[in-house]
C-alpha cells in the first residue's frame, strides 16, 4: 500500500532499526520524525537504514540530525546505514554536506546495529 514506507524493526533487540524505503522529502519528513521519536522513546540504540531509500533531501537530513542530537543527549547510540550499493539520490547529499562522519553513516546494517549498541552502552 504505502509507496514510501518508514517502519520500525525491533528484531535486533536493544537496537531499533528505522527502515526508510523509497523517496523522502518535505512531504514524508513529518512521518520520519514521528518514527524517529518512537525509536528514541524505546530508550536503546537507533539505526536508520537507508538501504532501500532512493532519494532523501535536506528535510530528511534535518530530521536525522535532530534525532541524532537527541540520541547523543540521552546516551543512545545513533547510526545510519546505506547498504553496499547506494542510490545517487542518497549518496550525493551525504557526500557534499560532509555528514558521513557526523551522523555517522556506515554501509552494512549489522555493523550499524553493533555500533549503535556500543555507543548506547556508553563505551
Amino acid at each position, binding site marked *: 500500500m504505502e509507496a514510501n514506507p518508514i517502519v520500525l524493526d525491533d528484531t535486533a533487540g536493544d537496537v531499533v532499526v528505522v527502515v526508510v524505503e523509497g523517496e523522502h522529502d*518535505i512531504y514524508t519528513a513529518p512521518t520520519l520524525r514521528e518514527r524517529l521519536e518512537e525509536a528514541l522513546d524505546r530508550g536503546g540504540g537507533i539505526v536508520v537504514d537507508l538501504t532501500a531509500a532512493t532519494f532523501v533531501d535536506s528535510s530528511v537530513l534535518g530530521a536525522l540530525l535532530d534525532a541524532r542530537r537527541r540520541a547523543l543527549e540521552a546516551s543512545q547510540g545513533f547510526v545510519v546505514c546505506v547498504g553496499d550499493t547506494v542510490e545517487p539520490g542518497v549518496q550525493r547529499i551525504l557526500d557534499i554536506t560532509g555528514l558521513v562522519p557526523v551522523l555517522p553513516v556506515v554501509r552494512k546494517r549489522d555493523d550499524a546495529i553493533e555500533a549503535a549498541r556500543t555507543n548506547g552502552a556508553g563505551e
Partner: protein
Amino acid sequence: MTGGPEVLLIMPARPEGVGVVRQALAGMADALDFEASVLADMKMAVTEACTNVVVHAYDSDSGMLEIEMRASEAGLTIVVRDHGSGIQPRPARSEPPALGLGLPLIAALSDAFELRGSAGSGTEVRMTFAYTRDNDPAEANPVTGRVGIDGRWDPEAPSQGAPAGG
C-alpha cells in the same frame, strides 16, 4: 534557439506537490540525454527549490508554485518561482524549521544558478544543468559550514569533520 521540449507546471505550494515535480522532471529528462548523476543532481536541486517555496513563500496553503523546464542545446534550464513575500524569506511555516541547506545545495548541484526576487514580488530560482559535465559543480561551489547547535545549517562554521558540538 529553443525547439527542445518545454514544460510549465503550476500547482498549490504544498508538500505533496514536490514529489510530483520530481516525477515530471524525470519524465522530461528521459526524453533528453542526461547522465544519471546529472539527473540525480537535478532532482535534488529542484526538490530543494520547491521546498523553499512550500516552506517560506506564503503564509497559508493558498499560494502557487510554478516550475518551468526548458531544454536547449546547452542543457536543461529549470525555473522555480513563487509569488510570495519576496527574497527575504518569511520564517519557515514548517515545524520544526528547515535546516537551511536548500540554497547551498542548489548552488553546489547546478551548473549555473541565479536567484531573483524583491520584496512583495516573489522569488525565482533559475538553474541550468548541462547534459554532460567535465567538472563537478560541487567542487566549484562546495557546501560550506556545518550543523550548528540550534540544529540549523551554519554556513560560517568550519566545515564538517570535527565533532559537530552540542
